């Protein structure tokens, strides 16, 4: 993985940036941010600042020491989300640790999807919708007025409930679309597309038909194509909004295996209705109810010894 486009881009960044992944080499840094030293170090190398600067540093050859890209932590602070006057997310404080899979469970309409859409600022695309509070991507507030939304969305990818490859594009173009749409398609496009498709576990199945329409793949393949599409832009975080709810069990299994593989390079937030799925894929699980976070903790604890009685009732199927 160290020779692919991923590490190339890392190498293009300023030198001070390289310190950051190095610090984490011993595994994901605990981002509960009680340690002020971690906070300081990460503020310097926040990716958002970087992408706004012109990349003047010539891409030096990636050294062997350049580690593969890692995910970033996401922290919600008093996050509220509104549709017009109705408050759907009512002040959530929640942390998604870097390079972990966090599942969000809860009954329909509890604000799971809305909350997740606030993380990459997709919520505000709905007319009349707005969000309050802070969303910190590695201590960088994505709601800061100086922030470019486009840069936020490049750092935080998203996979939707229904597989939605672009119908006018081929398999290849679908994966390349993120790079092209953000004007980063110059050079190595083929390599980046292949890397992304391999990353999504789809390369072996589609390498012979890259020029065929993306919409011609099966549902499960389409969803993995969508994952490849978001991987191609090289995000630090991937949000998945019920990615398997439109898929059959075998396709679901493949996506779940993929999630387990992907977490070494990205932080994953997955909204799911399927509690077994949460139990299978997630390191930590958060339970939401009517716009509020009830409980968050290691997945095993949430399912075996929840501290809140409402969580217990939900995971044991008493309601929801």
């Amino acid at each position, binding site marked *: 993985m160290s020779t692919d486009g991923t590490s190339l881009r890392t190498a293009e960044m300023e030198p001070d940036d390289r310190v950051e992944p190095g610090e984490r080499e011993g595994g994901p840094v605990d981002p509960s941010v009680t340690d002020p030293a971690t906070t300081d170090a990460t503020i310097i190398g926040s990716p958002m600042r970087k992408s706004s600067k012109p990349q003047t540093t010539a891409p030096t050859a990636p050294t062997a020491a350049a580690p593969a890209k890692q995910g970033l932590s996401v922290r919600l602070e008093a996050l509220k989300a509104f549709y017009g006057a109705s408050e759907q997310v009512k002040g959530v404080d929640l942390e998604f640790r870097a390079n972990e899979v966090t599942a969000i469970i809860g009954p329909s309409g509890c604000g799971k999807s809305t909350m997740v859409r606030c993380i*990459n600022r*997709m919520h505000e*695309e709905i*007319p009349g919708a707005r969000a309050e509070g802070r969303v910190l991507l590695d201590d960088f507030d994505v709601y800061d007025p100086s922030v470019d939304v*486009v*840069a*936020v*969305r*490049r*750092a935080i*990818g*998203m996979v*939707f409930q*229904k597989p*939605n490859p*672009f*119908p*006018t*594009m*081929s398999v290849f173009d679908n994966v390349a*679309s*993120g790079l*092209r*749409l*953000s*004007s980063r398609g110059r050079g190595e496009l083929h390599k980046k597309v292949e890397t992304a498709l391999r990353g999504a576990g789809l390369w072996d199945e589609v390498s012979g038909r890259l020029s065929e*329409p993306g*919409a*011609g793949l099966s549902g499960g393949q389409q969803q993995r194509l*969508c994952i490849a*599409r*978001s991987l191609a*832009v090289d995000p630090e975080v991937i949000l998945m909004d019920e990615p398997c709810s439109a898929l059959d069990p075998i396709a679901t299994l493949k996506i779940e295996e993929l999630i387990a593989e992907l977490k070494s390079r990205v932080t994953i937030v997955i909204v799911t209705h399927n509690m077994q799925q949460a139990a299978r894929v997630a390191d930590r699980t958060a339970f939401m109810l009517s716009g509020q976070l009830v409980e968050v903790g290691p997945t095993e604890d949430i399912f075996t010894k929840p501290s809140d009685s409402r969580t217990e009732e939900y995971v044991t199927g008493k309601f929801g």
Partner: protein
Amino acid sequence: MNAQTPSSEKLARFNVSPARRRRDRIARGTILAATVLALIPLLLIVYYLLSKGLSSWSPSFFTTDPTGNTFFKSSSIGGIKSAIFGTIEMVALASVIAVPIGVGVAVWLVEYGKNSWFAQLVRFFIDVLTGVPSIVFGLFIYIVLIVGTGSSFAGYKGALALSLLMLPVVTRSAEVILLLVPGALRESALALGAPRWRVIFSIVLPTALPGMVTGVLLAVARAAGETAPLLFTAAAAKATSFNLGGFMNSLPVQIYSDVTSPTTAVVNRAWGAALTLVVMILLLNLIARLIARRSRLA
């Protein structure tokens, strides 16, 4: 029903009752009759166009300009070359003006204006424009560009009148098609970190293209068949002209002036011209559909 009802009678309630069957037949018959009724005038038009128009078609019909010698024998009246070229030139110019503006307005309405009061106002005026009789556009251009400037008739003035006529049709149809583009596609493109204008140009417009072509064609067909906006803007002319600044002939105006002629041969030329117009629009339709199908991957 009481308990003593024989079982055969019980089963009978699952049969379609004669009354229902009758109503079904009447309803189906009515719909079929309506369809046939609607087809009759269409078929008659095609029949008359072919039977009367084809007889005046000949190679020289398309290659000569009308001579204006309408009182002599039929061989000397000339063809409709100038009208064909005039129509093509003016409709092309009108499309070049109306299509980008119309699509632009539609994109603004769907992607930016949405339900704001200004967007609603724009929609209202577009609807009003759609209902404006075509002669009003002709009069408007006549008053502004001919009477107002004291200048003469010109092909480009005709094209402007036609573009005014096309604009609301293009806008409305493009808006409807753009609304059909699934929001999920826009969302997934935005979530990839694409700027909004990129999403519109690379995702929304290509997806909507086949539908928009249909809408544009509808507008082109309507403009190509209009007489009124051209009567006092481009006027009628005899010679073929490639100068949009001068008088310019067109098929509808040619037809209009020909059918009012007392000479049978000239009236027949009107039929020939009408058939030509219909065939041209049909060809355009086929070509555009082919292009639209090619451009789509599926």
